[in-house]
């Protein structure tokens, strides 16, 4: 048949909107199998009855005690949720909690890798909770364990000079029962009503046990809707106040039949809690952060002493930045700091030799010292952030079987890089689910919107695109936001990409965003793109926080970010110059296309 040109019989192209139609159908319930006939149903019922009878007999002989539950499992809570491990062991997990367990002959071994959980352990049961830097032994107890998500892997990376600066803290609040906490070779019995805090630095654990009643009680803030930021902020404040009461303002007002925060009401609440002072207030989520109001109430004098209101930017609402804010707010409201807090120090890349650090890391990797290698790579990233080093750090994290660290570096990789290196973690037993679930579409969307509001359109687009990979992504909304950011960044290619994903009605409304930036509807539809680079050239959109001078292939352009440059296709090096610091990134341009490079170098 070699004489026949089969290609002459051409098939038509696939229909437009096929993906939309398929995705829409996937939202419909899956059709059930056709109902079986009456006769067949009788046969199945009789068979099932027989099987059940046999099973019942077996169960009567060898029935388990209590409700059967899996003897092992794992939960990464994407919302507050309750889990039952059987035998009277249960937990209420806060959003973000990462918990695994397995039952042994001696009880249940639990690993709480990150987040907060309130545990209840029945009187006959015994659990061991591994919480990064601490091991918690509980029997017949009720307790809360909090592992800050940003330091949950400190045990793995404890030797790192870079991370030594991070204060790792695990907090154990014991409500009732018998609890022992072991850390750094020291075991402490934590009494009911006490809080035990373990800090990685200074090395010796800081014990704040046997506190009968706190002098300052921090009530949960009003106005938050299950938001993790508000929750952790309150946890931070309670840790600073050494408060273990864990009471909510709204609950206490209701319990004391108070409609307002009248002094007589607050005094009654404070008195019942045995507190000399109360801290309470509210939190309101804003587009670019959180408005937090804290009040200090003197219970004895029955009067409001001080009110503090601050807006915590979204970019500072997690991890150490949030803890800094908690400390600042706490100091202000308690009067410990009467002068304005100093602005957070501007991060300056340390004077260091990134290439030397990478070399050292590579040697450590070759020697199988993955944790040490990771520390070197992270030091190199701090010195000079580059994606290739993020890849190395990801590889070291995977080989060290550090989920948290792998997740951290995974989030900084491009899709192409993720695709290249995923297998490294997979072969070490870390799944894509464990890597991907770290992202929160809402947070990323918020981050992107904050960037967009300050004119960082490229950064905004990156955040929106990153958010699309999160499980809770609202794709329709993200397509619209990405289209807006692409238009404002004057990126014809990206705008065209998202234009095709917009529903017809919003597309017509949003079109003006591109039109006002010189991108016409024809260009969006794939027509001639007037501002597009001429054949044989390419356009590079460069953006950066903070503003930077730009060098291309080492040569000054005289331009500062944001800027669009017309360059020859091929490989180039983009250098951001910020003060005395230089950050260089490779980029590959294709003829006739527009690429975008946007960095956050604060």
């Amino acid at each position, binding site marked *: 048949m070699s*004489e026949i040109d*089969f290609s002459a019989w051409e098939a038509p*192209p*696939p*229909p437009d909107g096929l993906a939309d139609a398929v995705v829409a159908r996937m939202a419909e319930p899956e059709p059930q199998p056709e109902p079986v006939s009456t006769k067949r149903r009788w046969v199945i019922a009789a068979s099932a009855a027989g099987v059940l009878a046999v099973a019942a007999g077996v169960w009567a002989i060898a029935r388990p005690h209590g409700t059967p539950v899996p003897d092992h499992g794992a939960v990464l809570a994407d919302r507050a949720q309750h889990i039952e491990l059987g035998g009277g062991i249960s937990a209420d997990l806060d959003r973000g909690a990462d918990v695994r367990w397995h039952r042994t002959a001696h009880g249940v071994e639990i690993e709480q890798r990150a987040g907060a959980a309130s545990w209840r352990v029945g009187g006959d049961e015994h659990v061991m909770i591994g919480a990064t830097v601490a091991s918690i032994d509980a029997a017949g107890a009720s307790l809360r364990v909090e592992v800050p998500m940003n330091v949950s892997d400190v045990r793995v990376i404890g030797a790192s000079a870079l991370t030594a600066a991070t204060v790792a803290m695990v907090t154990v609040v014991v409500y009732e029962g018998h609890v022992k906490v072991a850390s750094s070779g020291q075991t402490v019995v934590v009494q009911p009503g006490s809080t035990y805090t373990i800090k990685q630095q200074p090395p010796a654990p800081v014990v704040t046990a046997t506190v009968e009643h706190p002098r300052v009680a921090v009530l949960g803030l009003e106005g938050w809707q299950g938001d993790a930021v508000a929750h952790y902020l309150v946890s931070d404040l309670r840790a600073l106040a050494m408060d273990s009461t864990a009471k909510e303002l709204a609950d206490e007002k209701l319990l004391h039949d108070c409609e307002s925060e009248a002094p007589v009401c607050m005094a009654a609440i404070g008195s019942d809690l045995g507190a000399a002072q109360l801290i309470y207030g509210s939190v309101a989520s804003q587009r670019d952060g959180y408005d937090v109001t804290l009040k200090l109430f003197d219970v004895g004098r029955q009067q409001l002493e001080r009110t503090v209101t601050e807006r915590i930017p979204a970019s500072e609402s997690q991890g150490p930045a949030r803890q800094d804010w908690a400390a600042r707010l706490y100091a202000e409201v308690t009067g410990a700091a009467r002068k304005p807090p100093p602005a957070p120090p501007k991060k300056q890349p340390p004077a260091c030799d990134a290439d030397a650090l990478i070399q050292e890391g590579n040697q450590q990797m070759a020697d199988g010292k993955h944790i040490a290698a990771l520390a070197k790579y992270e030091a190199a990233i701090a010195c000079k952030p580059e994606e290739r080093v993020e890849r190395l750090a990801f590889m070291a994290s995977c080989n060290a079987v550090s989920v948290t660290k792998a997740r951290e570096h995974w989030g900084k990789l491009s899709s192409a890089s993720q695709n290249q290196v*995923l297998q490294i973690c997979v072969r070490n037993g870390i799944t894509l689910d464990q890597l991907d679930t770290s992202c929160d579409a809402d947070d990323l969307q918020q981050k992107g919107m904050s960037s967009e509001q300050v004119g960082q359109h490229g950064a905004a687009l990156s955040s929106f695109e990153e958010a699309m990979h999160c499980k809770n992504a609202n794709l329709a909304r993200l397509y619209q936001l990405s289209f807006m950011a692409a238009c404002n960044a004057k990126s014809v290619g990206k705008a065209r990409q998202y234009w095709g994903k917009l529903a017809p009605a919003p597309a017509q409304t949003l079109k003006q965003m591109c039109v006002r930036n010189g991108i016409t509807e024809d260009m969006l539809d794939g027509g001639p793109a007037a501002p597009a680079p001429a054949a044989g050239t390419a356009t590079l959109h460069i953006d950066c926080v903070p503003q930077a001078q730009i060098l291309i292939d080492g040569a000054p352009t005289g331009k500062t970010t944001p800027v669009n440059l017309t360059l020859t296709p091929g490989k180039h090096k983009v250098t951001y110059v910020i003060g005395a610091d230089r950050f260089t990134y490779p980029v590959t341009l294709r003829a006739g296309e527009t690429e975008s490079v946007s960095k956050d170098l604060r």
Partner: protein
Amino acid sequence: MQAAVTRRREELDELTLRRAQRGDERAWRDLIARYQAPVHALVWRLLASRAPHRAEDVTQETFVRVLRALPRFEPAGPATLTTWILTIATRLALSELRKPLPASLEREPLTEERADHASERARLGAAIARAVAKLPEGQRAVLVLREYHELEYAEIADALEIDVGTVKSRLSRAKDALREHLTAMGVRL
């Protein structure tokens, strides 16, 4: 023989596949974008003689079934994702061919006039279409999967649930019949 119309393309990357398997809508769309052309071409060629108007619906149904079954697809298994998807498409198309045609629908003629005023290449394409349409459906499926989608004999055997020997014999008979039909139509081979 000149190059087949639908060359085998690179498989979907592992990351997108894994995301699609756990229900990531964006990954679903990437998967559909990657495979919609070969799937639609396969379905359309199998149905061209009888129900080309059903090609769009069968293509859509193929992807719905693919996405629903995707979590059970084993990337390390014997079938590539392409083969697996084309298998689903083939079975749905053959099933469609076995359904009775509604009385209100006439078979779309593989028009002579379209070829009459078209180029030589278009006339050849139309002649191949008419010749393929005369093949029994089993032979047609083997021919299309082999010549247009470059499946291996074993892959075709798995897709159609027949022996490899049967695949080879059907392909041989299909080519002989095709040559005969084309010669009868005046196509110089």
